[in-house]
C-alpha cells in the first residue's frame, strides 16, 4: 500500500516525452486454462507502439502465463493475439521472433554451455546465414557477417553494462549479470516489442537502478516494452501504461497514477475485504 501510493508519480515525473502510437499488440478475449483451472480469463488490452506497458498483479495473477501466451510458448484456449496487424494466436515462438517479438524469462534461460558473447550472438540468429552448407565450408560471406555479428553482440553487451564479461563463460557469471545478458540477447534480434519478465527480481537496489536505466534506454530507441515486475518503485517510475491482473482477469488499467489509486488494485494487493 505504502509502496503504491508513495510512488504515485506527479504529472511531470511521468514519461510524457514518448508519444503513444497506434497499438502494436492487441489481446482480444484471451483465455487459457490448465486442467480446468482458468489461468487467464477473457482478457483484452492493447499495447501502444513505443510505450513501456507494465503488467502487475499479485503472485498467481497470471502474468507469466500471459507472457507465455503472447510469445507463443503456450497456445491460448480461446481468444486472439494480434501483433503488428496480424493474427498470431498460437504461432510458435520462433515465428513470432521473426515478426519482431522477443522476451526475457522470470527464471533465467541462459545457454550455460556457451560464452556470454555467444549467448548474445545467438540473438542475431535471424539476421545471419544459418544454412548447413555455408557453415560446413565456411563461405566467406558467412564468415564476414558472423564477424560483424560478433562486434554487434559485443556492443550490445557494453550497452547493458556487461563489457567486463565479454570473454566469460556464461556459467561463471553472477545472477545480476545474467539478467542483463538475457536482455542483450533479446535485443540482438532487433525486436519491435520486448517482453521483460521480472528483470529486477533478485537484484539489489543498485542493480535494479541499472536495469531501470537499461529499460529506459531501450524504450527511447523505439522498442515497445511490456514489463512484468514486482518492484513497484520501478513500475510506477517508468511505465506509460499499466494493466493490473488478478486471478487471470483484468482488474484495472490506465496510467500509473490511475492504477495506483484504484481501490480494486489496492484491495487485491492488500487482500482487503471488498
Amino acid at each position, binding site marked *: 500500500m505504502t509502496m503504491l501510493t508513495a510512488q504515485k508519480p506527479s504529472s511531470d515525473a511521468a514519461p510524457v516525452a514518448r508519444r503513444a502510437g497506434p497499438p502494436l499488440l492487441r489481446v482480444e478475449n484471451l483465455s487459457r486454462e490448465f486442467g480446468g483451472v482458468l489461468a487467464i480469463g477473457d482478457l483484452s488490452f492493447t499495447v501502444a507502439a513505443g510505450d513501456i506497458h507494465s503488467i502487475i498483479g499479485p503472485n498467481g495473477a497470471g502474468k507469466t502465463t500471459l507472457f507465455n501466451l503472447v*510469445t*507463443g*510458448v503456450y497456445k491460448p484456449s480461446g481468444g486472439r493475439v494480434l501483433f503488428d496487424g496480424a493474427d498470431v494466436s498460437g504461432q*510458435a*515462438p*520462433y515465428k*513470432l*521472433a*521473426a515478426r519482431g*517479438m*522477443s*522476451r526475457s*524469462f522470470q527464471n533465467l*534461460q*541462459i*545457454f*550455460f*554451455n*556457451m560464452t556470454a558473447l*555467444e549467448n548474445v*550472438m*545467438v*540473438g*542475431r*540468429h*535471424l539476421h*545471419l*546465414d*544459418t*544454412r*548447413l552448407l*555455408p*557453415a*560446413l*565450408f*565456411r563461405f566467406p560471406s*558467412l564468415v564476414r557477417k*558472423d*564477424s560483424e*555479428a*560478433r562486434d554487434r553482440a559485443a556492443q550490445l553487451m557494453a550497452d547493458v553494462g556487461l563489457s567486463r564479461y565479454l570473454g566469460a563463460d556464461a556459467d561463471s557469471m553472477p545472477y545480476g549479470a545474467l539478467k542483463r545478458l*538475457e536482455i542483450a*540477447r*533479446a535485443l*540482438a*534480434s532487433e525486436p519491435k516489442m520486448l517482453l521483460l519478465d521480472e528483470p529486477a527480481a533478485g537484484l539489489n537496489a543498485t542493480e535494479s537502478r541499472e536495469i531501470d536505466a537499461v529499460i529506459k534506454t531501450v524504450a527511447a530507441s523505439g522498442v515497445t516494452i511490456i514489463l512484468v515486475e514486482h518492484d513497484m518503485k520501478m513500475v510506477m517510475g517508468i511505465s506509460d501504461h499499466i494493466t493490473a491482473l488478478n486471478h487471470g482477469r483484468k482488474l484495472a488499467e490506465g496510467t500509473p497514477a490511475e492504477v495506483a489509486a484504484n481501490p480494486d488494485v489496492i484491495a487485491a494487493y492488500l487482500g482487503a475485504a471488498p
Partner: protein
Amino acid sequence: MNRILHGRLTGLAVLGAIIAVLPVFLTNNFYLDVAILAGFNAVVCVGLNLLIGYAGQISLGHAGFFGIGAYASGVLVGVYGWPPIAALLAGAVFVGVLAFAVAKPILRLKGHYLAMATLGIGIIVSIVLRTESGLTGGPDGMMVEPFKIFGVELYGEKVWYWVVGVLLFVVVWLSLNLIDSPMGRALRAVHGSEVAAEVVGVDTARFKVMVFVLSAVFASVAGSLFAHYAGLITPAKADFFKSIELVTMVVFGGMASTFGAVVGAVVLTLLPQALTVFQDYQQIVLGAILMATMVFMPKGLLPTLAGFLPSRRRA
C-alpha cells in the same frame, strides 16, 4: 575471434601432424589395422558428438546407420554390381531420408523420445540384417568387394590408412566449421535452453532434425568405407552394443568437444586390444567406463584435461 580461429587451426594442425607421422610407428599391419578401426570410429563419433555433445540429443541407434551404409555397399556392389562410389552415395541418401523420416515427427517432442526411437531403429536394422540372409548373409555376414574408383582399387592397410586419415581430417574440419557458425550456435542453444533459442528465432525442431540427419549420414559413409576395407561385414557391427560403444566413446572423450570425440574413439578402440584378457567382459568394462566418466569427469577426458592447463581454452 582470433583466439577461436587460432584454436581451430592449432587443433587441426596437431591432428594433421599426428595422422601424418603415425605410420612411422605403426610397424606392422596389425597396428595399422587398429589405427584404421580407430579412425572409422572417430569419424562416426565426431558426427555423433554434433548430435549428443553440441545439440544435446541422444541417439542409441547410430550403429544401425553405420550398418545400413556398410550393407548398402556390400549388397549394391556385390549383388547388383553397382560402382562402389554410387553404392556409398545411395546408402548415405537412404540413411539421410530414413533419419529425416524418423526425426521429423519425434524431434517436435521434448525429452528422451529420440533416444527411444533410435533404439528401435537400431534393433530393427539389426534384425533385418540377421534375417534377410538371401541378401545379407544373415548372422554370418557377407563378403564385400574392394573399393574401386576410376579403375584404381584401394587395397591393403597402408592405402586405407591414408584414406581414413584424410576422411577423419576432413570430417573434423567440417565439424569445427559448423560449430563456429550461426547454425552451430543454434545447435548449442538448443542444448542450453530450447525456449530461449525459440524466442530469438531459432526453429529448434528444424535444427535438431538437420543435425540428426547429418550425423547419421557421417555414420553411413564411414560404414560404407569400412565394409570395403574389412571385406567382411556382420550384423554385430550394427547392433545395440555397438551403438552404446559409440555413445560411450563420445561421452568418455568429452561431450561438446570435437577433438574429445576423436580421443574417446581412439582410446576405446585401443583399450580392448590392450586388455584382451577382458574380452569376455567387454560390455561390462564399457559400462564401467561410462559410469566412471559420468561420476568422475562428467565433461569427458579432453575437456577435463584442458581444464588443468593454465591457459584454459576448450578444444
